[in-house]
Every structure is written in structure tokens, then in C-alpha cells.
């Protein structure tokens, strides 16, 4: 079964995500790279730290891949999320989706990052000069049927 869903300790590799989804019958690859920003709500951020419930996070990312296959018609999805300390400017998440046509690839990529932020069990801690704070997400969408 195609698709790459991985929690990674250490730097993320965009090329491996693209390789995992590429193929000669696909004309479009959309990617999303989330990087650690140097500020949040006007406050300088020195680095980010991510923590995950690793096996559940990978399972939920795979579930998002299944949603994309049924909604957008392509099984060619890669979702990589880094855990541990992430320096400003470095990627914390990489998503790649390949499809026959551009609209499906772009819409599926957008769906993947929205769903990842909503339901994948990963948490972010922002480190400031001399302090740190866990970021808590909004109440999630309906998680169970």
C-alpha cells in the first residue's frame, strides 16, 4: 500500500517525501512544509519542541491518507512530522501529495495539514528567552463516530 506516514527524530527530508509519492502517471505534486517561526503572537520564539504519542500519531496520519484517497482519488500521500527540538527556520512537518491533476493534489495537501493540526496527537512547546510554554490546540472536530 502506497503512502509514507512517519514521526521522525531529527531533520526531515523533503526529497524522501517526494520520492515516496512520485510516479510517471502523476502530473502534479503539491507539498506543504511547516517551519519553526521566530515569533508567535508578537513574542520572539527561540526554538520549538514537539512531543508525540508516536504509534497513535502514525496511525492517525495514515487515517488522513485514507481520507485523501477517498475524497481526492489519490493514494500517493506522505506525511512526516519531526519530534524533539526544532530550530527556527527548520521544517517541523512535511506533506507531499501526488495526483494526476493539480487541483486534486493541492486540495489534498491542504486537507492533510488541516487534519494533521486538528487530530494527530502531537504537541508543540514554544521556547522563549528563559521560559517555555506548551501550546494547546482548539477543541478538536468530532474525533469518534
Amino acid at each position, binding site marked *: 500500500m502506497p503512502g509514507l506516514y512517519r514521526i521522525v527524530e531529527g531533520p526531515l527530508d523533503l526529497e524522501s517525501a517526494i520520492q515516496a509519492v512520485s510516479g510517471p502517471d502523476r502530473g502534479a505534486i503539491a507539498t506543504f512544509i511547516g517551519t519553526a517561526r521566530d515569533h508567535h503572537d508578537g513574542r520572539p520564539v527561540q526554538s520549538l519542541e514537539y512531543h508525540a504519542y508516536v504509534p497513535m500519531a502514525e496511525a492517525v496520519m495514515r487515517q488522513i491518507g485514507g481520507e485523501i484517497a477517498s475524497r481526492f482519488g489519490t493514494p500517493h500521500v506522505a506525511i512526516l512530522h519531526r519530534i524533539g527540538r526544532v530550530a527556527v527556520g527548520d521544517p517541523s512537518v512535511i506533506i507531499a501529495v501526488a495526483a494526476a491533476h493539480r487541483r486534486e493534489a493541492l486540495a489534498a495537501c491542504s486537507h492533510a495539514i488541516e487534519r494533521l493540526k486538528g487530530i494527530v496527537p*502531537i504537541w508543540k512547546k514554544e521556547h522563549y528567552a528563559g521560559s517555555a510554554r506548551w501550546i494547546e490546540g482548539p477543541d478538536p472536530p468530532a474525533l469518534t463516530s
Partner: protein
Amino acid sequence: MTVRVLLFARYREAAGKAAVEVEIGEDATLADVWESVRARVPALREERRPLFSCDRVYARPDHPVTGREEIAVFPPVSGG
């Protein structure tokens, strides 16, 4: 029965450990598990928005607990 409850992110930091073991009754739900966890870990008493999973799938507070599941409780997610 005794169940082991995995904690993540701020909950883990508050408890000072990755998991806690609590005693619950035979017909307990995840909500009962959470009450027992908070009784054991005072730092979690102010937490108002826990999410639950059973065997790595989200579950509601009224989900019954058999004691054989992998149970986890954690705050709203913030990855990305």
C-alpha cells in the same frame, strides 16, 4: 482492577512521569479513569479539556474500559 494510563505533553510534565496506574471499578468508563488519575495527580486537577484514546484510537468519555486496552489521556493537540 488496575489500569495503566499513558500521559502526554503537559499532562506528562504535570505528573512527572509517562504513565500512572489507577484502580477502577468493573463498570468504569474513561471518565472514571480520568477522575482516578486526577485524584492521584493533584497537578492535573485544573485540566478541563482532556482527550482520550483506547488502543490508539480516539474514544469518548463514556467509553467502557475492560482493563486490557492501551489507554491514554492528553490535552488538545497542537502539531504542525
